[in-house]
């Protein structure tokens, strides 16, 4: 496969994992709020393809795609979603708190914008340790940019010239609220105020375009060991949380999603039929691993508190 095919394959794999989650959901095997990335997969795969295993990404409750794109394993993921002992975090985390330290996925938080400063802090540590090869990716949604913590984090990263990639996955929505109800700033100008290089991509459906722009952004952070900002417009196909859609409710411009899907290569039939069977096998095995795993017990209840 060439780069573009590889990225599409990765994106499809993520989508199929989430589609399996939707399929499983009515069985109540997954008793956890789920924030799906369906429609947004290209962002995760395109960005992560530019990262080394030692680069750290700091993700959110909408974290399945980044977890997988950065290398996180599927069996432990499904086991975690099902609250099993062999899950990533022994069932204590669930869908909202994914992590994979060995692959550089640091803990996801369900408090909006609360891990942006963690990325900055990890980058500070790296600078103090005189590392020059690593970068730190703060991943967040458009809504997170309204939090003061986001602004404070940009100030600190720019002030101390820290190797942070601020990565905004801009799906235009916070739950059901549009950006125009929440934001009055022009993002490019805001970022410019900190003298942070700004990269912007509208075609967030295209893994290869994401790959290319993030190659530049990641490259800038790595070579300058200073922050850069990458905003990628994307589209959430599903409801904010849960396994369903939210199209018929009428709060989203009709046709918006259809127009996006038409351009989305992951919805492409040929691609799907090419890889379908292989991915299904992989997912089946992961689900089986999860189902075979025991539930945690009272012995686990009070471990790791401190």
């Amino acid at each position, binding site marked *: 496969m060439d780069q573009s095919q590889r990225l599409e394959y990765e994106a499809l794999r993520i989508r199929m994992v989430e589609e399996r989650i939707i399929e499983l959901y009515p069985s*109540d095997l997954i*008793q*956890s*709020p789920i924030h799906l990335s369906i429609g947004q997969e290209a962002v995760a795969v395109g960005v992560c393809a530019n990262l080394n295993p030692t680069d750290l990404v700091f993700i959110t409750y909408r974290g399945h795609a980044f977890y997988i794109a950065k290398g996180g394993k599927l069996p432990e993921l499904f086991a975690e979603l099902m*609250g*099993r002992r062999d*899950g990533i975090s*022994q*069932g*204590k*985390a*669930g*869908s*909202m*708190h994914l992590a994979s330290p060995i692959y550089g996925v640091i803990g996801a*938080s*369900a*408090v*909006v*914008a609360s891990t942006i400063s963690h990325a900055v802090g990890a980058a500070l540590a790296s600078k103090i340790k005189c590392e020059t090869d690593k970068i730190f990716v703060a991943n967040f949604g458009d*809504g*997170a940019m*309204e*939090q*003061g913590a986001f602004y404070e984090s940009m100030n600190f990263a720019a002030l101390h010239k820290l190797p942070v990639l601020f990565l905004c996955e801009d799906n235009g929505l*916070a*739950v*059901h*609220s549009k950006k125009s*109800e*929440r*934001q009055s700033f022009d993002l490019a100008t805001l970022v410019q105020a900190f003298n942070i290089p700004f990269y912007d991509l509208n075609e967030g459906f295209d893994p290869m375009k994401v790959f290319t722009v993030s190659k530049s952004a990641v490259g800038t952070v790595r070579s300058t060991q200073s922050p850069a900002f990458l905003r990628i417009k994307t589209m959430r196909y599903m409801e904010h*949380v*849960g396994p369903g859609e939210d199209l018929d*409710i009428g*709060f989203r411009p009709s046709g918006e999603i259809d127009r996006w899907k038409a351009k989305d290569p992951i919805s492409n039939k040929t691609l799907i039929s090419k890889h379908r069977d292989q991915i299904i096998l992989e997912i089946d095995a992961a689900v089986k691993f999860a189902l075979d795993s025991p*539930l*945690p*017990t*009272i012995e*686990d*209840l*009070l471990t790791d*508190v401190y």
Partner: protein
Amino acid sequence: MSTNKITYRDALAISMERALANNANVIILGQGVTDFKGLFGTTIGLHEKYPNRVIEVPLAEDSIAGICIGASLNGMYPINTHIRADFGLLVFNQLINLAAKYRYMFGGLFEVPMMMRMIIGRSWGQGAQHSQSLQSLLAHIPGLRVVMPSSPAAILASYEYAIEKYRGPVVMLEHRLLYELEFQDDVFISDTPLDGSRLIREGSDITVVATSVMVLEAKRAAEYLSRFGIMIEIIDLHSISHPDKEMILNSVRKTGKLVVADTSWSAYGVAAEVSRIINEIDPSMLAAPVINLGMQPAPCPTSKSLEDLYYPDVHDLVNAAATLHFNSFVHDIPLPEKQSMTDFYKHFKGPF
């Protein structure tokens, strides 16, 4: 006020609607208060009716709390909502350093009437950051009224009073698990419904002081135990910051035995405060050690199998009461099955 066959959610929706209708200064600010889900159905349609006064806000809890204080200083009655109490930690500076102190710090020159509605999450994998109950943190702070309404009548009475009569900051801790429930014979009459506790059931053997959803569990336990001739008295603490101390003391004087059942952790929590109230007056009224039931001393785990162990429920209440009654951990009362409260009350699967 007495209500029949309305849900906790209905009572909240009615309170919000009435507040806007009766008082032109009421404004509601929060994430999701204008959308079609209307904060779990408690603000649906209100933005359409009062477009300037029901306001969608950016994700910026700290400043929104401050904006509410400012609006209050300029004559409004702001109601600020938090879909999870956990996010309320972002407003602790404004709530504790500013709102709670505003009147005293300026020697009475200002008042900041306002309400924070914080919803406590539970079950379906809410996990460590969507499940906290912050009542004891807030009730430690002079200047705040902290209330945990456990029924529609409690909501109708205390929200109206807070909005129409009371001139300071109030924190209402609502419990998500109660939203769907209907209540019968639910009466709450009080001249000052932000203060004081509720005597839910009389009994001669054991006092249970409970908060929020634990009041319901206490009722289930009391009914169960009455079959074995053990009579439980239930006090709903209701006003966490200003409980009815006399009611607690009188009950424990009568029963000599106390169980405290709270939605949060016991250390430095409601359990601790109830013991303080007793010990400052007369610890000898206690004929036995107090049994305190709260969340396990850990963050909340996500897995349902752990979550069910994490929260106390009717099973633990029955066990505690029987232990006290027979003065022994070994007793003959068969324990009700440890069944998830969520399963019992309603199969809760969101919306979150």
